[in-house]
């Protein structure tokens, strides 16, 4: 067979493999997250009303399927007459963007620290891990609150808070992986072929750390969403009038009896998204674990 034929057959086989593995993808978490992402990105186009401008004359309208409801305000309105659905949609954007950005930065920093501690070892390892211990020994929510009050409410600060609380978890896990991977023969061989420490960390250790890192990321995203909502609920999150799900729950707190929908729907949204990410994490872990054991 010609080389080109061999190569084409190989590529087709690889594509078929990817398509086949897509079939195994669990629908529910993927659909949930996909929908959230789409909603977050297309908020400007799909939200029926503005999330911040309210019409006092239609405040506290119940969801459309109930008595007194209005079809153009599908999930009702809050006490300022703002459309719950629209706020929910924009809230998705807030939650998703905080979660994604915060997790990315935290994972990056935590991974770097973990790689250095695990691979370089010795003094560097001791210092970095003691630092991680210090950060981890404080209860997360407490730190979050204190920092939020000290730093003030803003998008950046929420990301910083997540970073401060969460980096040790990533660092610890990556360090553990790095410690076991660096004993592998191929790492010894890479060093024996004259590859420098940083190149070894980047090319050999890091790619083999990615599977467990991916699992951790999916699980922590749910946590970050909840943290952001908690901070918003307590009034120290992203400032108004940005419609965070947490803020919506806070707003509806005093109306639980008469206008339950203001707090209910954002609560459901949080629950669904966390659930979706956790299920995704389970699936990722199941897929990657057996392969991990090969090493």
């Amino acid at each position, binding site marked *: 067979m010609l*080389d080109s034929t*061999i*190569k084409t057959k*190989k590529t087709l086989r690889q594509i078929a493999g990817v398509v086949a593995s897509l079939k195994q993808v669990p629908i529910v978490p993927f659909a949930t997250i996909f929908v959230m992402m789409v909603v977050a990105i297309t908020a400007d186009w799909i939200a029926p009303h503005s999330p911040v401008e309210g019409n006092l004359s239609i405040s506290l309208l119940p969801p459309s399927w109930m008595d007194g409801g209005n079809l153009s305000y599908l999930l009702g309105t809050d006490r300022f007459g703002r459309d719950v659905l629209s706020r929910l949609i924009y809230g998705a954007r807030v939650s998703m963007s905080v979660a994604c950005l915060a997790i990315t930065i935290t994972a990056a920093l935590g991974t770097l620290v973990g790689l250095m501690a695990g691979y370089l*070892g*010795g003094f560097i390892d001791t210092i970095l891990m003691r630092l991680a211990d210090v950060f981890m020994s404080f209860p997360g929510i407490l730190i979050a609150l204190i920092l939020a009050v000290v730093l003030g409410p803003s998008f950046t600060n929420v990301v910083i808070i997540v970073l401060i609380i969460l980096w040790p978890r990533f660092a610890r896990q990556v360090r553990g992986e790095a410690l076991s991977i660096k004993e*592998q*023969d*191929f790492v*010894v*061989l*890479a*060093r*024996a*072929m*004259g*590859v*420098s420490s940083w*190149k070894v960390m980047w*090319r*050999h250790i890091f*790619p*083999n750390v990615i599977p467990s890192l991916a699992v951790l990321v999916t699980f922590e995203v749910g946590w970050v969403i909840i943290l952001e909502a908690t901070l918003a609920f307590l009034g120290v999150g992203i400032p108004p009038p940005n419609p965070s799900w947490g803020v919506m729950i806070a707003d509806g707190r005093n109306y639980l009896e008469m206008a339950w929908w203001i707090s209910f729907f954002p609560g459901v949204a949080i629950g669904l998204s966390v659930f979706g990410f956790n299920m995704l994490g389970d699936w990722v872990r199941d897929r990657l674990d057996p392969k991990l054991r*090969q*090493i």
Partner: protein
Amino acid sequence: MLEVRNLKTYFFTRHGVVKAVDGINFRVGDGENLGLVGESGCGKSVTALSILRLVPSPPGRILEGEILLDGEDILKKSEAMMRKIRGVKISIILQDPLTSLNPAYTIGDQIGEAVEIHQHLRGKLVFRKVVEVLKLVRVPEPEVRAGDYPHQMSGGMRQRVAGAIALSCQPRLLIADEPTTSLDVTIQAQYLDLLKQIQEQSGISIVFVTHDFGIVARMCDHVAVMYAGKIVEFSRVKEIFDNPCHPYTTALLKCLPRLDIASKLVTIEGDVPDLSTLPPGCSFAPRCANRKPICDEKYPEEVMINKNHRVNCWLWSPQ
């Protein structure tokens, strides 16, 4: 070409100092092969790592000695200079082909890594070199195989790839640390033949770290028998089979099962000693059939049996 003088590599652990390599001397000439033989735990692999200065450094340290590569002591070189020697002048093949390769990259990428670093090539030129070295280790269809991942290959093929990586920058010395132990017997023979062919073509020297006298007989010019961190006997290969002097060597050779005569399998009584609590005299004394009182008191001096044969044993000393 390679001369090791009085090399001492100790591991400083909480339970004591483990004298993994305790003052060994040997020489490897150009194009010659040395077999470093001994049981598990005798220090042969640590010797290999010490030559490359890859001893894991928190517990381990090279305390003393000189390792002369073409006359230059590489123990005195900086880490940066060592990185130019590793892979280029000295390479290593490890025992387990399964873990010797990074599962995340194609074998072409892994072979190409050393080529990129040491020969400063990029892209197509790297690929060409990779194919060239794959041909050298007799991997069929090298252009296609270069895109394979390690898990797509058999053990024997992987060990060839490991060989390819080691030979990619034309080193002068190859250290083969039990290269065939994980392979099945027919593949073992093929692999050794391959190494012999490569040696004939390139004049490379090979140090075989092994417990298998068969490999020594087939591939090596000289052999050093190690026990508890020391070389107890060193000679030309033919002589070690014809005239083994050290009781440990004799015992090891007796352990080899014989195919011509039906006989019971022989073992050496006792266990390898704890390297952190070695006795003052000869380390083999507790298990030696020819033990004398002096063996427990002083470590045997070196005795030259003839020009090419030395042994450390009181049995052969004039006393």
